[in-house]
């Protein structure tokens, strides 16, 4: 079975294969959120949220609307500053002190719910721009595309199955293709941690299945945090599931484990 195969590959990876350049994951975890609180006009979007994600893990985060899933991603990527609590990437990188581009540069990639790509650039150019490089003004002005970069882009084009579309404008792609292009752009950044906000929303069943395969193949080499509403999809791919409710963690564990949790049943199904 493909799923079992993927899990085997994943556990093999976490035995020492995990890429850790720049980020200190010597204690096994790549992301630490501790007692994080964020409120907007009195509404507590995150309320004392504590969450740890291990390097190489594929973590799914589920929860009803307003549970704080997107706010959590905003805190990790520097878009929102927490009112209280700490957010660390690896042992030493304090995410609350860095700007969005700096966080992206340390190795956290984020995919938005609505595909966010450069519509007036070709698929190839989208990947070229995302590629890990010196992203300051002068080096960007002088940047030339070498064969290493072209090979890397070609590899990712194969991964996201968009090689035939390389020279098409990204705005002309189908919705599912745009989702994949955005994931490809994240991969070009060579991140350690990928945050994916509803990555299969609006995809056909076939595309969803291929996405599941892709994410399973990525786990181990990368750490993935996936926010998703599609429970079948979550059940298929997740190592561990975190259930958020009203800004804090309600339950955490395997899918079977959280599905049996009384509080989770109450929140999701109503009493």
């Amino acid at each position, binding site marked *: 079975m493909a799923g079992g195969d993927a899990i085997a590959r994943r556990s093999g990876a976490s035995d020492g294969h995990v890429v850790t350049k720049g980020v200190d994951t010597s204690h096994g975890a790549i992301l630490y959120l501790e007692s994080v609180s964020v409120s907007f006009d009195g509404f507590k979007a995150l309320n004392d949220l504590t969450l740890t994600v291990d390097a190489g893990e594929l973590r799914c985060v589920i929860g009803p609307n307003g549970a704080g899933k997107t706010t959590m991603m905003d805190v990790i*990527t520097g878009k929102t500053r927490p009112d209280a609590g700490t957010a660390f990437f690896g042992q030493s990188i304090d995410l609350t002190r860095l*700007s*969005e*581009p700096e966080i*992206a*540069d340390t190795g956290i*990639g*984020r995919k*938005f719910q609505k595909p*966010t*790509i*450069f*519509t*007036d*650039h*070709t*698929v*190839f*150019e989208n990947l*070229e*721009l*995302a590629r*890990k490089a010196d*992203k*300051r*003004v002068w080096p*960007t*002005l*002088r*940047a030339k*595309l070498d*064969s290493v970069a*072209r*090979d890397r*882009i*070609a*590899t990712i*084009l*194969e*991964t996201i199955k968009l*090689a035939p*579309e*390389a*020279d098409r404008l990204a705005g002309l792609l189908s919705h599912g293709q745009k989702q994949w292009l*955005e994931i490809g*752009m994240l*991969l070009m*950044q060579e991140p350690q941690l990928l945050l994916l906000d509803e990555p299969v929303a609006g995809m056909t069943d076939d595309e969803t299945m291929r996405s599941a395969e892709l994410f399973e*193949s*990525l786990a181990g*080499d990368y750490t993935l945090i996936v926010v998703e509403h599609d429970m079948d999809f979550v059940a298929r791919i997740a190592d561990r599931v975190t259930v958020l409710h009203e800004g804090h963690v309600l339950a955490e564990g395997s899918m079977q484990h959280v599905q049996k949790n009384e509080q989770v049943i109450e929140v999701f199904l109503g009493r």
Partner: protein
Amino acid sequence: MATAFVPGSVTHGGGALPRLWSGRAWALMGIAALILFVIVPVGNILVPAGSIFHVSDYTVTLAGKIMCYAIVALAMDLIWGYTGILSLGHGLFFALGGYAMGMYLMRSIGHDGVYKSDLPDFMVFLDWKTYPWYWSFTDHFWYAALLVVLVPGILAFVFGFFAFRSRIKGVYFSIITQALTYAFMLLFFRNDTGFGGNNGFTDFKRILGFPITAPGTRVVLFMITGAALIGFLFLGRAIVTSKLGRVLTAIRDAETRVMFSGYNPVYFKLFVWTLSAVICGIAGALYVPQVGIINPSEMSPANSIEIAIWTAVGGRGTLIGPVIGAAVVNLAKSFFTQALPEYWLYMLGLLFILVTLYLPRGIAGLWTRKNQ
């Protein structure tokens, strides 16, 4: 990663990046150079006035003036067309460049003013005895030339730094730039500011020792302006075909993605904004000796809006389009303001509406549509 990399997919897998110029563009550039540097100078100076091949002084000055506007439109295209930031204050940078050059031209009048004084006439009129400190060294051409670049550049850099860092965008940015140019206009209208008040600078006599109205001087200024226009077209094209240019367009289309890709948009915006302002300043400095006057009305909000109209009419994000737009609108303007002066503003408004409705990609869009 567990993907099969197909060797050779690099070649057939696409990945063409934009070229500097197509063969056709090179040819057009050659024709433009021929007209600028051979046909017009010969037609103006060597061909006698009666001949149909004679190019009149009026034509040379008008063409020189329009090329200055074209440079401004090109600068506008970099910031608006490519980066998506609509400035409604670009007339300010143009005027500041013009004033910097104007200071040198005023000093070059020497004792030939009405009052035969060391000081420009307007200072004598105000009963000033010495030049204010900020007029120091402006009698040196190269210092004035430095001011042409530095004054608009530093103002744009400082203003842009705070505006972009505060993430001021869209219509808010446009309104603030509009207010900025308006504030400077009011400042320059004041006699105490030391720039000639509402009359500004005029009655220039010479530039670098050459009489400023002589046909030879005019033709040389015309050719320098043409060379600057072509030079800025090359520079603009080099920028927009670079990776930096692609980042600028990416900022226009999806700024958050740019940020989350690891680029800090603030510095990219600041780069193109400052460059655009400097180009406007240079255009202003070329404009003043040819037109013979600079006054605060160049900073009026309406002037800056007109720059945006030239750019939109010509076609945003094409570089050559705004150059054509500036030429078309200003030729129409010089025709209408002579033939039907009261109706020019209506014509301009109508033109803008028609282009917005039927040619959303401007005049340049006609050409690209035919090619697709």
